[in-house]
């Protein structure tokens, strides 16, 4: 009986040797685990942390110096020592007292330092995480001429502070979730309490907490998760992502929820509606007329990038009567001697452009000029001179290409670009009728989608009296 009791208390009282053994069992031979014997007051102790999650100067400065507790000359008990540590020595650091060894291990992985005291059941866990991260820089997408130049970084803490310092408001809430059963990536949901619709909040929470993914390295994964939650096929992106804190904050003012993923500089916004993708944060910082003008210009360019090649094919190969005669003659003269029909000609050049674009985004920066020379001179100039494609074709394709990049959000442009091929196919099969049907399909799809129950595109919603926004 007594021996049993002793062994039981022995288990609870973490003897340092046992702790060492357990650590070795769990962490194996990993080189970045530091297990160092320290003196805690008058007792022996053990401090362990991952060297890769903190830096030694921080540990020296804030942890080790205070451990000795030199001010206590008279002997005190272990429990008292522990309390002293907790209350006075580390009151400035975020700390926790844990009993379960598994919890402690997990905390160590997250970048905490654990301090064991010989024979004491409790373990003090200190947050000593100091990670090197990119400093705040200007965002690489979504550039503005006028407006704040800060962009989000890969560190979620930095990102949250970027948001918090724009809202000096007690209602701003951050909720933490852990996603990925292999990576335990921290995901934060930020919203203004009382502003956001409860129903939407519930749905987002449910999605985040019921995910079964193994790893999470970028917010793109969560974007897909939210996107696939909607019913039916969704051709348009329903989640907005931004690298700009001011854009995210202005969305949050409008009753949206921001989702910050540790390790990704792109913060997601839900729910998203269609006009969001045509809004640049800069629009709000300028004279209102310029803002409105550029927004409409973006819509126009979007329509242009979708239908121009298809329209060209439909009109030149089916409905020549719709072209003014002078233009028709000029097109016909240019197409003289071109071996391909208009649809093949367009497809050829569109695919060439897609290849150029793909090469341009993926290649190392140093070889950049090569691609532009080959693209501009060889493919543009030479194909026309060689009589493979006509001049007007090059105009059509380049106009489409430029308008395709006008949308301030790159992901939107890249998704929408594919619809162009569908329209080209339809219009080369049945002319203008096919083009109109294709456009109708896109419009129906646009109005059918709902993002967390909010209609994706609703022209007159601003005149709805019941709307709270």
């Amino acid at each position, binding site marked *: 009986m007594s021996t049993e009791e002793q062994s039981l208390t022995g288990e609870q009282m973490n003897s340092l040797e046992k702790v060492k053994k357990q650590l070795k069992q769990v962490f194996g031979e990993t080189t970045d685990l530091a297990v160092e014997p320290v003196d805690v007051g008058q007792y022996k102790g053990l401090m362990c942390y991952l060297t890769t999650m903190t830096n030694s100067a921080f540990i020296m400065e804030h942890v080790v110096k205070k451990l000795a507790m030199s001010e206590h000359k008279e002997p005190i008990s272990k429990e008292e020592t522990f309390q002293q540590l907790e209350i006075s020595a580390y009151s400035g650091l975020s700390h926790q007292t844990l009993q379960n060894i598994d919890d402690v291990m997990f905390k160590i992985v997250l970048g905490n330092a654990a301090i064991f005291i010989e024979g004491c059941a409790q373990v003090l866990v200190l947050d000593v995480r100091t990670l090197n991260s990119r400093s705040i820089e200007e965002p690489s997408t979504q550039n503005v001429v006028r407006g704040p130049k800060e962009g989000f970084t890969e560190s979620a803490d930095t990102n949250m502070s970027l948001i918090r310092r724009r809202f000096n408001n007690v209602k701003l809430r951050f909720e933490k979730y852990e996603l990925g059963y292999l990576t335990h990536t921290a995901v934060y949901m930020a919203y203004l309490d009382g502003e956001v619709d409860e129903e939407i909040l519930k749905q987002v929470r449910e999605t985040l907490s019921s995910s079964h993914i193994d790893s999470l390295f970028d917010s793109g994964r969560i974007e897909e998760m939210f996107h696939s939650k909607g019913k039916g096929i969704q051709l348009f992106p329903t989640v907005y992502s931004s690298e700009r804190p001011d854009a995210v904050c202005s969305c949050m003012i409008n009753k949206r929820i921001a989702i910050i993923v540790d390790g990704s500089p792109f913060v997601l916004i839900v729910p998203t509606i269609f006009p969001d993708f045509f809004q640049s944060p800069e629009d709000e910082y300028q004279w209102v007329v310029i803002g409105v003008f550029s927004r409409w210009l973006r819509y126009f360019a979007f329509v242009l990038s979708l239908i121009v090649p298809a329209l060209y094919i439909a009109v030149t190969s089916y409905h020549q009567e719709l072209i003014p005669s002078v233009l028709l003659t000029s097109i016909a003269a240019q197409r003289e001697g071109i071996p391909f029909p208009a649809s093949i000609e367009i497809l050829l050049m569109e695919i060439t452009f897609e290849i150029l674009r793909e090469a341009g985004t993926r290649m190392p920066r140093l070889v950049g000029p090569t691609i532009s020379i080959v693209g501009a001179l060889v493919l543009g100039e030479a194909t026309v001179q060689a009589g493979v494609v006509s001049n007007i074709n090059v105009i059509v394709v380049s106009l489409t290409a430029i308008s395709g990049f006008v949308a301030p959000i790159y992901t939107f442009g890249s998704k929408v670009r594919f619809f162009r091929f569908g329209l080209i196919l339809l219009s080369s099969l049945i002319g203008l009728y096919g083009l109109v049907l294709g456009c109708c399909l896109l419009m129906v799809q646009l109005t*059918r989608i709902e993002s967390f129950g*909010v209609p994706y595109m609703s022209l007159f919603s601003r005149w709805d009296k019941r709307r709270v926004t």
Partner: protein
Amino acid sequence: MTPSKVNPVDTFTLQLVFLLSTSIIFGTPSVVPDSWLVGLVAFFPACLFIVLYSAMLSSQHDLGLYPMLEKAWGKIAGKMFVLLYAIYFLYIAARNIRDMIELVMSALLRITPVPILTSLFIMLIAYTALGGIKAIARFASLILCIVLLMLVTLAVFLMFSSSIILEQMLPFLSKGMWPVIQSAFTHSLWFPYGEIIVFLVFQPELGGAKGFRKITLYAFISACIILTISDLLQIWSLGIESKKYSVFALLDAARLINIANIITRMDAVVALIIIFGTLLKCSVFLFACTEGIARIFKVKTGKLTFPLALVAGAFSILVTRNSAEHVTEGLKYVIYTMHIPLQLLVPLLTLILLRIRYRKGAAT
């Protein structure tokens, strides 16, 4: 950002586009000289439809058309009427598809086989109808903007190509008021205004009797104004005589546009208006039809949409042999055998039955 409800403005645009869509080109029969007056005259009796239908709705606490019929006529007869209405809606959808295909055949594609055109179109209709009435309403607001924009463009271009001659509308009332009134009562009243009965099916979702009364009145007024303006445009540019003999008068008017030899052929624009409008109208009818059929045979609505769309498409090809027969059938037989009984008589009888069977105070 709040989850969606049906917006009253969207309901309004839905009804407006529904009223405009095909009637903007086929609407007013050109057999009488002052056809633009027909639309105006027909508006006033058309308001009686609003009174009748909203009385039906308010007497039954905003029940939809189908449950209302079953309640008034009993289980079996009620089901028969539901089936009748479902088939009626499908038939109108088929006729509208045919109208649109006729136009596309004459304006855009002359030699493409009709089944190809139709089958592509019905797939689109089915897809639209699958979205439900909320999505259709939002789609309608998009369509309304495009259609109105195109109509204004047409008017402005006609003006700039100096095709609008106001004298063309003379002689005014050369045969007196009677032919106008007669035509209003035999044609325009039933189509497009009477077809609004299809909205009784969705009215519980769209705001009930109260919403119906107000929104539909606004929709009727706007539709009346727009149709009259479009008729006037056609008469001013084509003249009374050529409008009389033209099948697609708006299309012929658009052909007159010529601005500096650059903007010449605008008929494609008219074809676009028609395709958009017909798509919307047919999907409303198809959706109403699937609701009815699903109610009778107790199937899921989504499962029926594509098969019924196929039926509508096949029907649109088989219903008449040629364009002339199609137009005559539409102007004469359909009105007397289908529109008048199903838009006026059956609803009226239903209302009376409901009033008798469920008196005020009795449990409904």
